[in-house]
């Protein structure tokens, strides 16, 4: 699984990082930064939860290739 962050849409509300700090961080301007190129399997659920809570829909969840 991969998260695609649209940094132009990001308004820095930080709900993703509140929900899944293992996956999302905010830079000095409060813009989202992803901690992983590919989300480790054990963090996938949290990553999804963090993406869904974004009030400006700046985060997309993508499945990569042939995952189980």
């Amino acid at each position, binding site marked *: 699984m991969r998260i695609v962050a649209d940094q132009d849409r990001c*308004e*820095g*509300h*930080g*709900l993703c*990082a*509140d929900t899944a700090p293992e996956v999302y961080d*905010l830079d*000095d*301007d*409060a813009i989202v930064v992803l901690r992983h190129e590919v989300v480790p399997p054990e963090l996938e*659920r*949290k990553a*999804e*939860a963090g*993406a*869904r*809570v*974004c*009030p*400006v*829909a700046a*985060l*997309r*969840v993508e499945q990569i290739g042939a995952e189980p």
Partner: protein
Amino acid sequence: MSVRDVVVVGGSIAALTAVEMLRMEDFDGRITVLSDEDVPPYTRVPLSKGVLTGTESIDDVVLAPLADDVDLRLQTSATALDIDTRTVHTPSGPVRYDGLVIATGGRARRLGRPDQVERVLRSHGDCARLRDDLAAASSVLVVGGGFLGMEIASTARTLGREVTVVDLAPPLDRLLGAAVGGHVRSVATQAGVRIVVTDGGVRLLGAPVPTGVELVDGTRLEADLVVSAVGDVPNVEWLAGSGVQLHGGIVVDSHCRVAPDVVAAGDVTVISEGDGQLTRSPHWTNAVDQARAAVRALLHGDSAAPYRPSQYCWTEQFGLDVKMVGDLDPQGEPTVLDGSLDEGSALLAWPDATAPRTVIAVNHRTPPAKLKRLLKPAAAAAPA
């Protein structure tokens, strides 16, 4: 009895968060979501901004889709609840539950008569209609100067429309307090918005499509497009006679519980404070916080952590990015923690810097988590 079948009634962020929380809590039973919307859950936040200008479409604001194993039934409204038999009734038949999450949200409040086709902004359908109307209008009258009304005013001004906002009180003061409210209004006024504060209710003129309002002193304000942004009404009619306590919304306890195995979250709720006071917080983060607390209570009962509001809300308008934590409508002059309003970027605290109850960032890129940490540091440090 353990909960195996959870039904979530609603189709917006509270419902979506409830589903998410069920999965995070390793709930492996069945999840059914009954939504009266015709599209999957989306965020309403951009509806007063990018979607209204037309730079974004509904596809841009749909939230990440639910997991495949969740049974999402669109265009399915709940029509009645029977708590004794644990059944939600819908036009397509009854749906049984072991655990129920009510997140039916609200709808736009209207001012006019039934024969007036009032323009409001709540759903994506409202937004599409308003966008089309806006394209054809040269003047816009926004009735109501809360976050939504002022955001619509800002968008309309960006599109070059002549914009008037009318309200009973100076717009935004009730939310942001007079200091920041006044600042935003001065920026709005400089941007060309006319603000009218009236000392009494307004009467919507024109039918079927409203063409203006009449103030108590007889003054008439008219525009090509009249938009009502006067708050929302919780969707509770389907619960009439169910035994669910209704008082301007569903009354929930400290754990967002309503009845045995029934919880509620989001704009549909009113929270009963210890002193019997009922408060309503129809904001995004509250819907998220409540949905999480509600699901924990549904699965774990009294041992679940109670609802703790993060008290975060925000608005974007007239080039101002305003983020706020803590109590609404802070009184008096703020303590300036950084920058200054006159220079365009400021971090402000009320009533003082040592134990703030409200912190507001205006065009100040402080992450909200940091704003929350500034709030009542003594209370935050105390054990939960």
